[in-house]
């Protein structure tokens, strides 16, 4: 009951023109980077465009926007208040609130990464199909992972500034490969894309770390938010 109400709450908040505009801007940015990388040289262009413009910049910022929208620009506690005040469970509402944003992030990441691969590889490239499939599944995983982490972080700060701190830490600390990069999604997503590994983790390890840390952020957020 509360999960469904949370889904409904998120759908209403995401059903705005601003969501389409943000998706359009993020996609344009990714495609722009892809075109520039392709112009710089076809060799490694897909990797650079995916790990740089697409998964490195556009996806975290788009997920930040989505979570900001579903939280109505406030903290997680305030985001669910209109229904939680009447006796609905905050944890179930939070789960429901996250689902539409996670689905949207997964769809966007999959679609945009496919577009980036198409632009950088070109239709005649024999590696196109393999790269496309790989980038799609990484998108399907990393989009929801970012959303889960950001939703959890929104429980911190008076107005949910925790999600801004998380994005800042992801950009600053996640760029490295030491233990400081471990809690943030960026390093693990980069590993999945074939880039530098955080703490020399395998790709399976990176996948588990990405899912584990993101769900841990969400769990901490719901714990702070109470029922």
């Amino acid at each position: 009951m509360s999960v469904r109400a949370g889904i409904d709450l998120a759908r209403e908040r995401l059903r705005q023109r601003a969501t389409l505009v943000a998706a359009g801007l993020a996609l344009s940015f990714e495609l722009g980077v892809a075109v520039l990388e392709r112009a710089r040289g076809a060799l490694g262009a897909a990797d650079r465009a995916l790990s740089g413009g697409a998964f490195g910049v556009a996806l975290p910022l788009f997920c930040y926007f989505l979570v900001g929208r579903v939280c109505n620009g406030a903290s997680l506690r305030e985001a669910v208040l209109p229904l939680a005040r009447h006796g609905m469970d905050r944890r179930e509402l939070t789960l429901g609130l996250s689902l539409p944003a996670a689905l949207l992030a997964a769809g966007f990441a999959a679609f945009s990464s496919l577009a980036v691969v198409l632009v950088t590889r070109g239709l005649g490239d024999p590696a196109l199909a393999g790269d496309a499939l790989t980038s799609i599944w990484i998108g399907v995983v990393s989009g929801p992972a970012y959303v889960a982490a950001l939703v959890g972080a929104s429980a911190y700060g008076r107005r949910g500034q925790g999600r801004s701190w998380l994005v800042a830490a992801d950009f600053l600390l996640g760029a490295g490969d030491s233990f400081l990069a471990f809690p943030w999604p960026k390093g693990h997503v980069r590993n999945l894309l074939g880039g530098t590994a955080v703490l020399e983790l395998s790709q399976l390890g990176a996948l588990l770390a990405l899912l584990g840390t993101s769900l841990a952020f969400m769990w901490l957020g719901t714990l702070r938010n109470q029922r």
Partner: protein
Amino acid sequence: MRVQLRAAALGQLRGAELDLTPGRYVVLSSERGPLCSLVAVMAGREPPRHGQVLLDGMAPAASPEARRKVAALFDEEALPPAKTVLAGVAKALGARGAAGNTATQLLADADLTELAGLAPSALGQRETRSIALALALAHDAAELLVLHEPLTTLVPAAFVLARLDAHTARGALVLTTTTSTADATVLGGRWLCVELGRLREGETTTPRLGAGPWQQVLVESKDARALAQLLLDSAHGLSTELGAASDSLKVSGPALDVTVQELIAVARQHDLEIRRIEAAVPPVEALLAARAGFARGAYEASRAGFASAPAHGPARATGEVGTP
């Protein structure tokens, strides 16, 4: 329902010690902050930073079951997002477990039908609070109604008071908060006063902030003599002293809020007119403001004096003062 607050603090509410049973209460404060925080912790919007808030032994911030029994009106309200206000109200009713199709009637009862077709985002804070108040007043299963400034919305005051009376009569605990003594008098119930961010419920009235002139009230009334006689019988041990003018009266009591409340109650009961009530000693804030005003006036006078003086005299001194 039993509401217990033990050293509960949040924001400007520095500590609330209450143990309330069903009945009507009005919390009065000169500052809005502690009242907003009190409503937030009692309704489970936020947990207290320190201390405890318990509704029948359950913390409302951590217990959906406890929140289900609460109807609240916050300082800043938000409706569930929906295409129209009516749909938003239906969602709120659904979350409460009530039938959503009663939304139209709920808005009509509170005289808010004209807002039903608008988008919630198009409403101002006053309109949104009005809808939230209508929702709170319609919560017939609520055991605790905690409402901040319920008389400052678009809902007619007569309707609000009638609903509050009905809720009180059926055994709910109705607590309203306000910064207006006039509203507090109209809302009725037992007065609880926030002093310096602290709220304490006492069975007996005890002197606060020291005795003596600090607790004296100057009253201007053409019925001063009759009022003085009536106040002598007060349960709070008020003492009176008629002034030099026939319409002035000095009343001393255990605490200013208690004295003023008693004065108003007696005057209303016996239909006596009170023209003016003021504290015999101005509050600290007024003294500080007066001192600041005096200092500012003295400073400006000295500057004006320097500016009009000859250039080789004090004007040079002004330049020296201004140099860091």
